[in-house]
């Protein structure tokens, strides 16, 4: 099948889906409150945007997302490098990791609220924990997998210190593996955003809970689709950055 035909078919499929979705509640076959039609979502989006609520919710969610991601990924890369380069550190932490790692990120919610209150810091904490483990293991594996032959090149040309080895060889060689971890973490972090905010930290998740308690299902859908769009956008930008950063690969 040609590329054009595939695109046309995909567009047609989406239109049929939206058409059926629009028709069922409008024809009275489904309750409009339980299943709001797409046109109602557009109207709800317009209302949310003009009242300024949408922008505020998105901005605070994005700030939780960005800070949580930065903290979790930063610590994950740092400790992942350490565990990847030092057998002693890896051994010393092996059992701690084995106990703490299987705890689901959302199981930390009670402590997040006890420690930080229903505050942005609690959301950041939940997001950072989920991101941390993904990035930590990706980094550790990537560092461990660095071709020893390349490390030898650095030694042969005079780079003897561990720091020089890290900067000149280990980090650039491990970048592809670390990027894979980061990309997984980008998706994981959105889940954590919703979960953390559902408990009341201001943002998209909290707005969804408010709307659902008022049975404003059209607004709930506005924010569901908003998150899908934001994730899609962020992932696209990340992949573009990744391709540029890794343009040295065949």
């Amino acid at each position, binding site marked *: 099948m040609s590329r054009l035909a595939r695109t046309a078919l995909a567009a047609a499929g989406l239109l049929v889906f939206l058409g059926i979705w629009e028709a069922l509640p409008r024809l009275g076959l489904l309750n409009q409150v339980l299943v709001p039609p797409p046109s109602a979502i557009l109207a709800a989006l317009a209302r949310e945007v003009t009242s300024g609520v949408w922008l505020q919710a998105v901005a605070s969610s994005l700030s939780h997302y960005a800070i949580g991601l930065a903290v979790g990924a930063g610590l994950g890369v740092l400790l992942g490098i350490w565990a990847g380069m030092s057998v002693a550190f890896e051994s010393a932490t092996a059992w701690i990791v084995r106990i703490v790692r299987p705890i689901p990120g959302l199981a930390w919610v009670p402590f997040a609220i006890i420690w930080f209150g229903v505050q942005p810091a609690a959301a950041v904490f939940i997001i950072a924990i989920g991101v941390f483990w993904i990035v930590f293991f990706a980094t550790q594996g990537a560092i461990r997998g660095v071709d020893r032959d*390349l490390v*030898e090149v650095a*030694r042969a*040309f*005079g*780079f003897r210190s561990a720091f020089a080895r890290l900067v000149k*060889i280990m980090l650039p060689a491990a970048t592809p593996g670390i990027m894979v971890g980061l990309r997984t973490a980008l998706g994981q972090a959105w889940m954590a955003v919703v979960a953390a905010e559902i408990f009341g930290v201001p943002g998209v998740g909290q707005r969804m809970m408010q709307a659902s308690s008022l049975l404003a299902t059209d607004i709930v859908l506005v924010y569901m689709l908003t998150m899908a769009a934001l994730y899609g956008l962020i992932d696209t930008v990340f992949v573009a950055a990744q391709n540029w950063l890794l343009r*040295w690969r065949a």
Partner: protein
Amino acid sequence: MSGSPDLPVIEIRGLGLAYERDGRTTPVLSGLDLAIRRGEFVAIVGESGVGKSTLLRVLIGLARPSAGSVTLNPGTRAPAQTRLPPMALVFQDSRLLPWRRVLSNVTFGLEWSGVSRAERPRRAIAMLDLVGLGELARRWPHQLSGGQRQRVSLARALAVEPDVLLMDEPFSALDSFTRESLQDELLRIRAATSRTILFVTHDIDEAVYLADRVVVLTGRPAGIGAEISLDAPQPRRRRDPALAEAARQLRLELSQRSAEL
């Protein structure tokens, strides 16, 4: 440059190396003596696994000898002027850093040294021109052929202007056509730069075609066995009967030694 042409640029005395594994000691090199004069091209031949590469690894500092000494510029007491490493190694596989462009692979060895940031690319370009790849400075390593990669690796080693250029079977992974053209290229570069070269190979014909002197590394643990000087002036003919005779003697030497084991 210090020292007269007659003095060795490097003197290896009583060199020994043993691997320790599971409480067992396996000697690899023992009582190895070798002196190389400035500007000389010495080839080391020997069976695979005899310790040829290990010797180069000791010289470049990747392996620690358990006995003996390696002296650079013996007899001179010139203090080190720069931090430039006195030796550079061309590996069997080019081992370019894939995330660096060709130019920056060549500057790599200069980054540790005292060479200024502005001077590095200039020197790297000059070396790339010398190996005939000046045009490809902006390429990534994966865009090069095997022969081109090995040329870049040679340029990287030459850029540090080593007292001794170490080469570890640098052409053995290439097809025979590329190999012969790189051999001739190496001879041309050597004539242009008068570098001292220590060249490890298992290819006896390659050794006698390139070198002023061929030494046999043999025994377990290995030391220097026979050695043959080749007086034929460069450029040489590959089918030169004198070279063929030298190769025959070296083969004989190698087969006798291995029969004794």
